[in-house]
């Protein structure tokens, strides 16, 4: 019980400083789980994070996987709730506040002023992914084809993801 509560508390703390998502709090997550609490060793931490990166879905699910590793299903539930709940509650109230302020003439421009940061950071995460993924000419080719396909068409990006995977199996 105390362990589960500690897990909840650790991830809830992380959640509130996680501006930019899971990757942003990776160093702090490592400090809390490995150094402060000693719940896992370095190798396990790295392996779990890599696994969560390889799987689909929000990167924040790395937290769920770590909770599971520490204390089974209860740990998984506590880590997931801790990571999601504080941020979700905050987002709920902020959405309510913007709804109430919807008549204010500064609101739309203020919101639009945050957009370039979000778009710039999406671009940055793409570049970070590209750095890790492009190890030889074939992966560069897959990246460029995928880039042009998603940029210039409205077709589902699923085609290039599947195609990229298939080319990887055939040629890498």
């Amino acid at each position: 019980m105390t362990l589960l509560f500690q897990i909840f508390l650790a991830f809830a703390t992380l959640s509130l400083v996680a501006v930019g998502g899971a990757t942003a709090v990776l160093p702090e997550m490592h400090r809390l789980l490995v150094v402060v609490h000693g719940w896992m060793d370095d190798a396990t931490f790295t392996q779990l994070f890599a696994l969560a990166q390889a799987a689909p879905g929000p990167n924040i699910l790395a937290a769920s996987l770590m909770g599971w590793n520490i204390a089974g299903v209860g740990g998984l539930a506590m880590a997931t709730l801790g990571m999601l709940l504080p941020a979700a509650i905050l987002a709920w109230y902020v959405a309510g506040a913007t709804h109430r302020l919807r008549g204010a003439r500064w609101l739309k421009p203020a919101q639009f002023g945050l957009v370039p940061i979000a778009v710039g950071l999406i671009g940055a995460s793409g570049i970070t992914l590209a750095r890790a993924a492009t190890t030889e000419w074939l992966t560069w080719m897959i990246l460029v084809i995928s880039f042009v396909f998603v940029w210039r068409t409205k077709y589902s990006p699923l085609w290039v993801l599947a195609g990229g995977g298939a080319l990887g199996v055939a040629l890498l």
Partner: protein
Amino acid sequence: MSETRIPSRAELFLGYAKMGLLGFGGVAAWSRHIIVEEKRWLTEREYAEILGMGQILPGPNVGNASVMIGRRFHGLVGALLATCGLYAGPLTVLMGLALLYDNFADAPGVASFMHGIAAAAAGMVIATALKMGQNLRPPPELIAIGLVALVAAAFLRLPLLLIVFSLAPIGVWLSIRRAYREAPAK
């Protein structure tokens, strides 16, 4: 801009489940594709405004956006459905992968398959940022803010907290200033 349509509760859940399950390399690119292009729940501009607010709040921006978008269409039930849709599917996949990990990691082809997907996902994410920028047509000073954020995160590797909290006030100020100059108060 094309017409938008309001999703039913089931559509909201299923749309978010799809984003979660297909979201290799993060869900931001899929989230935009499904909400803006495929289902047309929001215009590019509406979606970007919600994502921008999700970005300055703690937690994943797409997760924060799921709460706000769910609430907009169906209140508390909508926020819960969108958020559960986003996390439940991938969480199940992830647990399956973790259980199979020892066999799975060494199976022939798996590493190459994931490697190919990762390269395609990187291209997809970069293209999404470019496409959003083109569709939103921000004024030059906001393009500059976006490029500073990109360089600071991708090349200087500054902490996101620092990037977001130093650029947010500047972006908001520049954007409000332009709006007031273009349409002075009556």
